[in-house]
């Protein structure tokens, strides 16, 4: 008989404790983000698709060596460059030198597996991960990114 009543009282007590907890939660602020209207900033180490990094003059740091293209296991990166002649002082005399300038840097995000091998293999720190995550589309073409154009748009 004692066990019967103690069970009832313990049960009731636990129910009241539960009610108190939810009552306290009721008045606390909401923790969710109303997603389409507001987005949260991604953390520092978020790994989105890759992005070119610019130098001080706003040009891409990339020297078109093609290490990222070779490192990519899925063949998602394609880049092109052209040779440009320029004047530079070498040991006190002006000389005409050649360098490669990036003309195209395309990422095919449909095959990219976000492994990050391209960023690992870049010796010049010219590419990094972007923080983009609102990447949904019904068209395949939307995932062929022209990263050079993105860089120019970012600068302008």
């Amino acid at each position, binding site marked *: 008989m004692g066990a019967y009543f103690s069970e009832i009282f313990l049960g009731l007590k636990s129910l009241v404790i*539960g009610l108190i*907890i939810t009552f306290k939660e009721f008045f606390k602020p909401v923790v969710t983000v109303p997603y389409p209207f507001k987005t949260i900033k991604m953390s520092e180490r978020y790994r989105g698709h890759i992005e070119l990094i610019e130098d001080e003059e706003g040009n891409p740091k990339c020297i078109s060596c093609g290490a990222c293209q070779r490192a990519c296991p899925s063949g998602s990166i394609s880049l092109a460059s052209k040779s440009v002649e320029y004047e530079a002082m070498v040991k006190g005399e002006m000389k005409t030198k050649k360098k490669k300038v990036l003309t195209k840097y395309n990422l095919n995000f449909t095959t990219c597996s976000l492994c990050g091998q391209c960023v690992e293999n870049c010796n010049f720190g010219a590419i990094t991960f972007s923080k983009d995550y609102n990447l949904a589309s019904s068209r395949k073409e939307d995932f062929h990114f022209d990263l050079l154009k993105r860089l120019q748009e970012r600068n302008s």
Partner: protein
Amino acid sequence: MSLTILNAVIAVVAAIAFAAVNAAYLVWAERRGAGRIQRRPGPNVNGPLGLLQPPCDGIKLMAKQIMIPGGADKALFMVAPALAMAPAIMSFVTIPFSDTIVAHSMNVGVLMIFAFASLGAMSILLAGWGSRNKYAVMASVRAVSQNISYEIPMLITVITIVMMTGTMDLKELVAGQAGGMWNWNAVPSLASPLMPVSFLIFFICSLAETNRAPFDLGEAESELVAGFHTEYGSMGFGLFFMGEYANIVIGASLITILFLGGWGCPLGLFPGVWWFLLKIYILIFSFIWIRWTFPRTTIYGLLNLSWKILIPISLFNLLLTAGLLKVF
């Protein structure tokens, strides 16, 4: 004669309107309340504070086609949702909101409300049986066994109250508790010292009668798809839903009338319909609060609670009250 017919029509329209508006906006309150308890905003897109959500849901439900599954008993399938809503509206006719606001005062109002409340179990049984779905049948068997076992302690508690007050008229029941919260039936009196326990039993039973969590065995989503209304779409489902919320309002009104002094003020000041509405909405909030706090019980735990705890205690209270009424 024509005036009484007009009165009746106005009463019925008012009862339907009150039930429908409450049902629609209690869904909103339920979803907002559930959201707050779970630290999220709930529906907040349609209109200010999401207040246009119920009309949107209603239009969506009404625009859908009623699908009758093959092999179902068409007549029972169509009758069941109406049977869920109609008794709830009927019960509103006799509930006194204040001294003057009552559609039809009856001297057996308590009896009538419980008679109609029992029809709710019938609609669940017909829905489960008529839709020819094994989940629906299982759910309706559960819901009916639950409703039967919770009706017993509920009615025993009501008998205790009726014995004390000597009336079945809801208005007289409230009039007997006028004057302040120390006169309420929920407060222990000399003749019935266990009244708070009775109040608790009645509260638990009315939760179980409305088939809501933690007693929602009749529509246990995780086990039985959607329970007895698995096969219902469109307004068939809508009527079950509205019936459930109308039953909540009736349950809260009954608790208020039987135990909490109806339209009387806790301190005996300014009795009126506002106190009644305040009390029922506090009770409805507690229903919502309980629903989003506790997980669902098992069917065994549910029946054990009724047969092993609620019925013996309410019977003991009945006998104690009967004995003490003889003494004093």
